[in-house]
C-alpha cells in the first residue's frame, strides 16, 4: 500500500517529476559517453543536491543511476565501446547488429529489456525490503559486525581479477577511514598533527576523486583516438523498427535474466557487470540458437540488458536495511542520506517510511521516462554524443570536479583530498587493484568499527562472541565460503588457460 501513497505523492508534484525527467536524460547521456559512468555523474552532482530537499535529491541521483546503466548500452551498440562496464556484454551482439545496419533495432531491444529488468528489480525491492528491514532489526552488534566482515570479504574477493588485490583494496578503504578522531576515545589516528586530517577524510571529495578525476586521468591516455559511430547515414528505416515476432524469442531470456540480475543485485559488491555476464552466459547456454550469439543475436542484447538493470533496485536492499551499500552508487547515496540527516539502516522504515516509498515511486516513474526517451530517442542521443569532442568534455569534467569537491564543505583541503584520491584511483586501476572495493569499504568501515567495539563491550569472552552467536557465525561462514569458491573458480580458470597454452 505504501508504494501507492508514494506514487500519489510523486505524481502530484510537478517539480519532483521534473527532477526525475532531468535525471533520466542526464543518466542516459552520461552512461552513453564512453568512459564516463553513472557513478562519476552522481559523485560530481552530489554536492549540488545538498541544496535540495531530501526526496528530490535522492530521486535525482537514484534515477541517474538507473538510466545511466541503460545508457551504457547505446555506446556499446553504436561505438563498440561500453559506456559502462555493465554494458560490455551487450557489446558482444549489439555491435555486430549495428554493423549489419540494425543499430536501431538493437537499441529498441536494449531499451525494452532494460525497462522490464529494471521494473522486475524495483518491484522485488518494494515487496521485499520492509520484510528484510524487519529481520535486520533483530540483529545485534555481533551479527552486524559479521555481516560487515562478510561484505568486506565478498566485495574484496569477488570483483576484479585478483583476490589478494581486491581484499587489499578493501583493507585500504578501512585503513583510510580510520584517519581522524577515534569515535569513542577521541584520540587522534593517522593525523600527523594536521587539523584538517583530524576531521577525517570526506566521503564526497574521495568519491569525486576516485570516480571522476580518476576517469579524467584514465581518459588522457585515450586522447586522440577517434570514435566511430555506426548505424548513421546509410541505414534502412525498416531495420530501425522492431516487431513483436522479433522480440518474442527474447522474452524468456529477459524474464530469466531479470531474476538473475535481481538476485545478484542483493549481494553486496557484485554489481551490474557480473549480472550481465552471468545472464549472457546462461542465456547462451539455454538458447535454441547458441551459434548465432556473438554474431548479432537480438537475444544476446536482451539478456545482459535485462540483468544489468535488474540489479539497480535490489542493490538498494542492503543499503536501506543494513546501511551496507551493495554498489558504488549505493555508497554515494549514503552521502546524501547523511547530509540530510537521515539515518539509514533497519530503523529507516520506522522513521522515514514515506520518503523511502516515494523514492521507490520515483524509481518506477524514472524507468518509464528513460524507457520512453530511449525507445524514441536513443539514436539521437548516440549521434549527439558522437559530436561531443572528448578533448573538450574531459577538461570541463576536470574543472567541474574541483568546484564540486570544494562545494561539499567549502574547504580547499577537500580539493587536495579529491586530487590525491583521483591520482590514487587511477594508479589502483593501472595496477589492477579495485577502486570500487576501496570506496565501498571506506563507507562500511565506520559502522563495522562501531559494531565491533559494541560487540566487545557486550562480550564476556572477547572475540569469541562472533563464533558463539549462531547468526554471526553463519554470516562469517558465508564469507569464508565465498572466498573459497572464488579461489577455486580462479584456479580453475588459470588451469584452463594453462591447458590452452600447452
Amino acid at each position: 500500500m505504501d508504494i501507492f501513497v508514494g506514487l500519489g505523492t510523486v505524481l502530484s508534484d510537478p517539480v519532483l517529476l521534473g527532477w526525475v525527467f532531468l535525471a533520466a536524460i542526464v543518466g542516459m547521456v552520461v552512461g552513453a559517453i564512453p568512459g564516463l559512468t553513472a557513478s562519476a555523474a552522481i559523485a560530481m552532482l552530489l554536492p549540488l543536491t545538498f541544496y535540495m530537499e531530501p526526496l528530490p535529491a535522492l530521486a535525482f541521483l537514484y534515477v541517474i543511476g538507473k538510466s545511466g546503466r541503460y545508457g551504457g548500452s547505446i555506446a556499446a551498440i553504436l561505438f563498440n565501446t561500453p559506456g559502462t562496464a555493465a554494458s560490455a556484454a551487450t557489446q558482444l551482439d549489439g555491435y555486430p547488429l549495428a554493423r549489419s545496419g540494425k543499430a536501431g533495432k538493437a537499441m529498441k531491444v536494449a531499451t525494452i529489456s532494460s525497462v522490464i529488468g529494471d521494473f522486475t528489480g524495483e518491484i522485488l525491492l518494494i515487496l521485499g525490503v520492509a520484510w528484510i528491514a524487519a529481520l535486520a532489526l533483530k540483529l545485534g552488534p555481533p551479527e552486524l559486525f559479521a555481516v560487515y566482515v562478510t561484505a568486506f570479504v565478498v566485495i574484496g574477493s569477488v570483483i576484479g581479477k585478483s583476490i589478494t588485490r581486491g581484499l587489499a583494496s578493501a583493507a585500504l578503504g578501512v585503513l583510510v577511514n580510520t584517519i581522524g578522531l577515534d569515535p569513542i576515545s577521541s584520540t587522534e589516528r593517522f593525523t600527523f598533527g594536521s587539523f584538517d586530517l583530524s576531521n577525517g577524510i570526506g566521503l564526497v571529495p574521495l568519491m569525486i576523486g576516485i570516480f571522476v578525476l580518476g576517469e579524467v586521468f584514465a581518459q588522457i591516455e585515450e586522447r586522440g583516438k577517434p570514435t566511430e559511430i555506426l548505424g548513421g547515414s546509410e541505414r534502412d528505416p525498416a531495420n530501425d523498427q522492431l516487431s513483436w515476432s522479433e522480440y518474442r524469442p527474447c522474452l524468456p531470456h529477459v524474464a530469466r535474466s531479470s531474476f538473475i540480475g535481481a538476485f545478484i543485485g542483493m549481494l553486496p559488491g557484485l554489481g551490474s557487470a557480473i549480472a550481465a555476464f552471468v545472464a549472457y552466459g546462461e542465456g547462451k547456454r539455454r538458447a535454441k540458437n547458441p551459434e548465432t550469439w556473438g554474431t548479432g543475436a537480438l537475444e544476446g542484447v536482451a539478456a545482459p540488458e535485462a540483468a544489468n538493470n535488474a540489479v539497480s533496485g535490489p542493490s538498494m536492499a542492503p543499503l536501506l536495511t543494513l546501511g551496507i551499500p551493495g554498489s558504488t552508487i549505493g555508497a554515494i547515496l549514503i552521502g546524501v542520506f547523511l547530509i540530510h540527516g537521515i539515518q539509514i539502516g533497519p530503523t529507516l522504515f520506522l522513521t522515514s517510511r514515506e520518503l523511502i516509498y516515494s523514492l521507490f515511486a520515483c524509481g518506477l516513474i524514472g524507468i518509464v521516462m528513460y524507457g520512453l526517451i530511449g525507445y524514441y530517442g536513443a539514436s539521437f542521443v548516440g549521434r549527439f554524443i558522437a559530436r561531443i569532442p572528448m578533448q573538450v568534455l574531459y577538461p570541463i569534467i576536470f574543472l567541474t570536479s574541483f568546484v564540486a569537491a570544494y562545494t561539499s564543505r567549502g574547504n580547499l583541503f577537500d580539493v587536495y583530498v579529491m586530487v590525491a584520491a583521483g591520482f590514487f584511483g587511477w594508479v589502483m586501476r593501472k595496477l589492477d587493484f579495485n577502486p570500487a572495493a576501496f570506496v565501498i569499504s571506506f563507507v562500511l568501515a565506520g559502522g563495522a568499527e562501531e559494531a565491533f567495539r559494541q560487540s566487545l563491550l557486550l562480550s564476556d569472552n572477547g572475540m569469541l562472541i562472533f563464533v558463539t552467536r549462531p547468526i554471526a557465525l553463519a554470516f562469517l561462514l558465508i564469507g569464508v565460503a565465498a572466498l573459497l569458491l572464488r579461489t577455486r573458480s580462479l584456479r580453475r580458470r588459470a588451469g584452463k588457460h594453462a591447458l590452452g597454452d600447452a
Partner: protein
Amino acid sequence: MFPLGASIVLICLGAVEVISSSPKASQTKAELKRNGPAILALLGLSLLYIWAMARFGYLASTFVAAPVALWIFGVRHPLGLLLAAFLCPGMYHLIFFELLGVFPPLGDWFDLLDVFGGY
C-alpha cells in the same frame, strides 16, 4: 588493533602480488612512458590550481587553469582556449557561487572579486 592489523597484512599481500606480476608491469611501464608526461602535467596542474585558488581566488586561477587543461587534452585552437579562459570561471562562478550560494574560495594575496566588489 585487530582491524588495523588485518588491513596491514592484506596491503602487504597486495604489494606481493603487484611485484610478482611482471608481464603486466612491463606493459604498464610502456604505457606510462607514452602517457606519463601528460599525466604528470595534469597532476601538476591539479596541485597548482588548488594552490592558486588559495592565493588568487577562484576566478583568476580558473582563468588560467581552464585553457591549460584544454591544452593538455590536445586543444590548440587559440579562440577556443580564449573562450574557455573567460567562460569557465564565469559559468562556474555563476552556478556554484551565485545561484547555489556557496561561499567562494577567496585569494590570500589577490582576488578578482575584490576588484568587482562582490565580496
